[in-house]
């Protein structure tokens, strides 16, 4: 006897959970299936050493307040150990820079006025993109009024900026972060930090045109009303995912972990359900995949249900990751030279200059890892001691850049790379090495193996102009719907992109409700 649902969601990553929760709240019978034994995907909290817990995606900063409220996540247990976390740009020489207008003014008088003005202006420009990021992308060249209206609205949003800002937006939208930084700012630590955020997760260094766009997207989403800013949920990111799962369940969705979908069932050119690797099948007229496009279309659906040019686009979509993740179990609080302990409540960026970040991105082009990596470091146990045994600490670092297809081979190189990263940290926080009790290094290949996203890309697919909006992840699947009726996407490879934002899941649910059920 097969169970029937209105909608099956493959993958209980945060976007799958958001999508499922919303559909369930709209009265749909929803089943969310997850191959792993816990929900959340990279936004889960896992024990990487006895008593030490960490989250692969370690910060939350893009999820709109409205979504948190709408899903009642706080009622379902979401609590913040910290929010509005500050950022410190680390300097190898010890002249670290706390990224607040006051500290910037003190450290770099030339930027004193420029920095706040720059932030205000960029936030304003990014604001014009917000409606675009919060809606299903229209299709081009159709006769549908909804598409035309959406395009006109987008044009109107940009025009509303006024002539000067509109011109600046149209100039910088295709520009590189490097030039944006040098056009407006002077302090290398400030420029480096901005460049880090602009390029995080992608394959392109700050000199590459198009790198302003991901930064504007980030700014637009962070700038939404009531946004929690950089935040750390209690219990790590698993705290968020668990709350999402509870919200989904409370709305009536069924969440089943430890079950792997083998393929999507299709009959008469529309989706009818899924078959699990156990052979069991569930039926539903709608299947939403939180998996990446290659996995979804080639492995789960099968190319026989698709057309060649579409499959070709999926095949060529750039989804090789360059981000590695390092988790260290420390028996004491790391002491970063010249850094006030309070800074550990925020995040630390090792991106001391534009050149430094640019060089880090040179390595993966040639199948190498960078010997001078850029990093986003948090010590989550400072805000949330529950993540480690008393007195002990966890250091969590997003590391750039390391090639997915490392020429020298990850099996051969992983130890050397881990040692290099710890050396790097030791340089910043002398004595750290001796406090390391255990370490977990997740290379792009490990991320792929653990989370199943082909290429191990931090955002499932590069967020670049040629993989954005109308063409994200590929033309023909940019509206969350796919060529096969009833099959939808909701993962990070969809608009508006990666990061724990939940917008992809929300918009996918919107597309499902508009089209299918």
């Amino acid at each position, binding site marked *: 006897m097969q169970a029937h649902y209105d909608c099956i969601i493959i993958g209980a990553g945060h976007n799958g959970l958001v999508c499922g929760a919303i559909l369930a709240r709209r009265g749909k019978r929803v089943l969310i299936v997850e191959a792993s034994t816990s929900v959340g995907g990279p936004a889960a909290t896992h024990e990487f050493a006895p008593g030490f817990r960490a989250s692969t995606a370690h910060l939350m900063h893009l999820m709109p307040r409205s979504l948190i409220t709408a899903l009642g996540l706080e009622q379902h247990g979401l609590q913040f150990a910290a929010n509005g976390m500050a950022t410190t740009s680390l300097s190898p020489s010890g002249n670290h820079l706390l990224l607040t207008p006051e500290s910037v003014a003190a450290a770099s008088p030339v930027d004193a006025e420029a920095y706040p003005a720059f932030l205000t202006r960029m936030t304003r420009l990014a604001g014009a993109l917000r409606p675009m990021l919060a809606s299903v992308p229209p*299709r*081009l*060249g*159709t006769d549908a009024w909804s598409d035309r209206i959406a395009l006109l609205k987008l044009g109107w949003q940009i*025009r509303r900026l006024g*002539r*000067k800002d*509109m*011109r*600046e937006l*149209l*100039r*910088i*939208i*295709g*520009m*590189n972060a490097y*030039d944006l930084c040098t*056009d407006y700012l002077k302090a290398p630590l400030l420029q480096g930090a901005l460049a880090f955020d602009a390029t995080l997760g992608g394959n*392109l260094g700050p*000199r*590459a*045109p*198009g790198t302003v766009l991901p930064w504007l997207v980030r700014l637009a989403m962070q700038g939404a009303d009531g946004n929690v800013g950089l935040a750390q949920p209690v219990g790590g990111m698993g705290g968020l995912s668990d709350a999402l799962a509870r919200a989904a369940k409370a709305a009536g969705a069924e969440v089943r972990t430890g079950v792997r979908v083998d393929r999507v069932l299709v009959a008469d050119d529309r989706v009818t359900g899924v078959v699990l690797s156990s052979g069991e099948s569930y039926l539903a007229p709608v299947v939403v995949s939180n998996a990446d496009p290659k996995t979804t279309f080639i492995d789960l659906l099968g190319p026989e249900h698709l057309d060649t*040019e579409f499959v*070709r686009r999926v095949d*060529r979509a*750039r989804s090789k990751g360059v981000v590695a993740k390092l988790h260290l179990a420390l028996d004491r609080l790391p002491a970063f030279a010249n850094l006030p302990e309070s800074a550990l409540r925020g995040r630390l960026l090792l991106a001391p200059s534009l*050149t430094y970040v*640019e060089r880090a991105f*040179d390595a993966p*082009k*040639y199948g190498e890892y960078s010997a001078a990596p850029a990093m986003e470091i948090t010590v989550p146990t400072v805000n949330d001691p529950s993540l480690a045994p008393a007195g002990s600490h966890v250091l969590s670092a997003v590391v750039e850049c390391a090639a997915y297809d490392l020429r020298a081979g990850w099996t051969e190189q992983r130890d050397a790379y881990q040692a290099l990263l710890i050396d790097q940290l030791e340089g910043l926080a002398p004595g750290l090495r001796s406090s390391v009790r255990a370490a977990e290094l997740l290379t792009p290949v490990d991320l792929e193996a653990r989370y199943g996203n082909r290429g191990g890309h931090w955002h499932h697919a590069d967020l*670049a*102009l*040629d993989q954005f909006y*109308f*063409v994200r992840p590929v*033309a023909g699947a940019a509206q969350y719907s796919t060529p096969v009726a009833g099959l939808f996407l909701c993962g990070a490879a969809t608009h508006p992109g990666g990061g724990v934002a939940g917008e992809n899941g929300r918009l996918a649910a919107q597309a499902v409700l508009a089209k299918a059920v």
Partner: protein
Amino acid sequence: MSAASGNSKRYDVIVVGAGHNGLVAACYMQRSGLNVLVLERNDYIGGAAVSRSLYPEFTYSNCSYVCSLLRPEIMRQLELPKFGLQVIPYEGGCTMMHDGNHFALYDNHDALRREISRHSKRDAEAYDRYARDVMRQCKFIKPLLLREPPDPTSFKIRDIQELLYIGKRFHNMGEKRMYDTIRFWTMSAADFLDEYFESEIVKAHYAGSSIIGTALGPRSPGTAYVLLHHYMGDIDDTVGAWGFARGGMGAVSKALGASFEASGGTIRAGAGVSKFLVRNERAVGVALSDGEELYANTIMSNMDVKRTFLESMDASDLPSEFVEQVRKFKIRGSSGKLNIALDGLPEFPAIPKGAPCIRGDMHVTDTIDMMERAYDDWKAGRWSQAPYIDMLMPSQIDPTMAPNGKHYMSVFTQYCPYELADGPWTPEKKQGFANSVIETIARQSPNFKSLILHAEVRTPFDIEREVGLTEGNIFQGELTMDQLLFNRPVPGYAQYRAPVRGLYMCGSSTHPGGGVMGAPGHNAAQAVLRDLKKVA
């Protein structure tokens, strides 16, 4: 060139700089009944489109070296063939590899297919898809070259009409090709080529054109669209769109100059402009470096925007925001050039005997990675250790360039910085740069070094000094997305008109940018003529 006679005469228009765009603009304006004076700092006209005799009996196209995108409409309207311009197509091209193999382009489709299939059978057949997609983009873009970019922030009827025109052309491509178009214009050459080809050498060969003259690598987004330059000629349906100007690139300038003078225009060479004169917020004339002042109602600058506005004007005559935008305009020197006189035809063992590709553009590289590493060197402020070179021997085709049996070789090189990380250019460093290029060629040609009679070495620094191009950037400004179309040279001023009334820009700093195309000059002239109500 006519003798100096400007003092007594009143001109309607003064064009500053006798580069090809200045001359094109001058021709159009003179032919429309305006009295035009062209001033040129050097003793010769042409700017970067020149033929120079720097070694006895040899002619060097010592700056620009091929006639690629020169608009057929311009050649025809200005009667350049009548004034002596002949463009002779060159034959294919090739890339030589370090293992002694090579990849060659042939005009014959079957020869090309068999050549590609030596490297990859699949690529041989993917090539047709590649050529088709690039041609589709050519068709889309071609009519935009000779049009003034609309200002998207404007509500003027003309701007809205132009926006609608572009929008309609875009819409007419159909949904699928609209998405293809968005991607084509934003992708890197490497990513774009990856969508078609698997062979490293095939990709490397085609990627070559995407980095010429630019401070970007083949992996930088926004470089893919440059690949269409090679197909522009095909879509023009004009045989020989890519070729050598007989007599060197100076022949282009010479024909333009002759066409201009035949229609009554005046050129003064050796007359460098030191300043644009502004009175009551209106451009009224120019001051020459010897102090002489010349007046006209319309002034047009063929110089790049930085030289025009930052070096030749008082900031107080310009809106401060505009000055700021011009400062932000990216003009980056990234290319060097060697001009070499050879005592005979160098041997290239990698190329089969008798293969015509030696009469085309020859390159030395194996992979896109090698080209990207060459770019990484530039980023670090040094010339590329393994430079990407684009070399041609026009004398094989054009008998006017060198004595019989001897050859002139033009070697264009990516990358060479304008400023070195370890301090200013010195003669020793310049020689170091030259050596890296010569050695690269010598590795492919055992007798090359022994044939060298003379070599002129030009770093971006030299190009700036001699030609006046800021940082020696051959396109008068990077051709990146933030500096194209309505953003070129700066947002709000993409319509050839400077913020000062009566002052116009016609250099490659303006839309559609660089290359010896003539389009900026044509469009700038149209802007003047429209403002003076000489045309609709």
